[in-house]
């Protein structure tokens, strides 16, 4: 259901666990659906021996996709007008991530109400792996 401006205030937030013990298989699943087969995400031999990382790691876009799930669960289906993120730390197999969407602004533009959200996705150690912003249309 669409959010209602009258029922919201700046500072309200929605928090959701978006993955638990992220599996290498889910990362492979994302490679298949997105078409991004970079071996850094699925090929442990290449990633540890050639690229120099401790293990394969998730696509940034997988974290964005999973965070998007938390955002749309909050604002409703098809209401997003903007969604932008910055990847700040890598996400590893075994990570458990939580996305937090916090209301930064409620505004009206051309008769339409909007909510601006500030996004933060953190891992099980409280380390921020992604930051972002989103805007959605809401009811009055």
């Amino acid at each position, binding site marked *: *259901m*669409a959010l209602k401006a009258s029922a919201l205030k700046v500072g309200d937030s929605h928090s959701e666990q*978006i*993955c638990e013990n992220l599996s290498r298989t*889910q990362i492979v*699943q*994302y490679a*298949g*659906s*997105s*078409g*991004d*087969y*970079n*071996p*850094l995400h*699925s*090929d442990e*031999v*290449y990633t540890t*021996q*050639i*690229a*120099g*990382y*401790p293990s394969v790691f998730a*696509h*940034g*876009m*997988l974290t*964005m*996709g*999973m965070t*998007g*799930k938390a*955002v*749309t*669960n909050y604002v*409703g*289906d*098809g*209401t*997003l*007008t*903007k*969604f*932008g*993120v*910055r*990847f700040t730390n*890598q996400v590893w197999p075994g990570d458990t991530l939580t996305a937090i969407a916090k209301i930064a602004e409620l505004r009206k533009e051309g008769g339409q109400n909007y909510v601006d959200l500030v996004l933060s996705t953190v891992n099980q150690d409280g380390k921020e792996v992604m930051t972002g912003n989103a805007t959605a249309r809401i009811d009055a």
Partner: protein
Amino acid sequence: MTKLTFPVEASHIMMFARSIGDTNPVYYDADAAKKTEAGGIIAPPSFAQSVAQFNPDYFLRPKPGQAWFGSGKTATGLTEKSTSSGGLHAEQHFEFHRHIKPGDVLTVESMPGKAWEKESKRAGILKFRESITEYRDQNGELVITARSVGVTTERPVSQS
């Protein structure tokens, strides 16, 4: 720049939603989706990036008869070691004019944006490269404008 045709199929949207762990029926169940605000099946917000599937030259997909930089008999299929530790995704921004739905045939065009450098303690010199991508539908209407920032690091990102 490259101009791609991206035919949007319901099964692709369903598989994409599964891969991000999103069980919302608006992404796969036509009857349930009809009753939502979206009015029918739509694609998850970050689906647009899957246009990579429709880029015949996409460099992050192995191709028959070509050496692949991932492992096989040896740790990399390339004979010369790359001087770079490879590119990473730094930022991704979408502006939705509407949401993608099955049956759309999108024309996708990318243009290079700004480029800049930054020194970092964790990965040495970082070279950032921006690209702007427009997704237009079968009627020529703009559906999504995307801005992507890629980064090439001097060395692997340290984990401290």
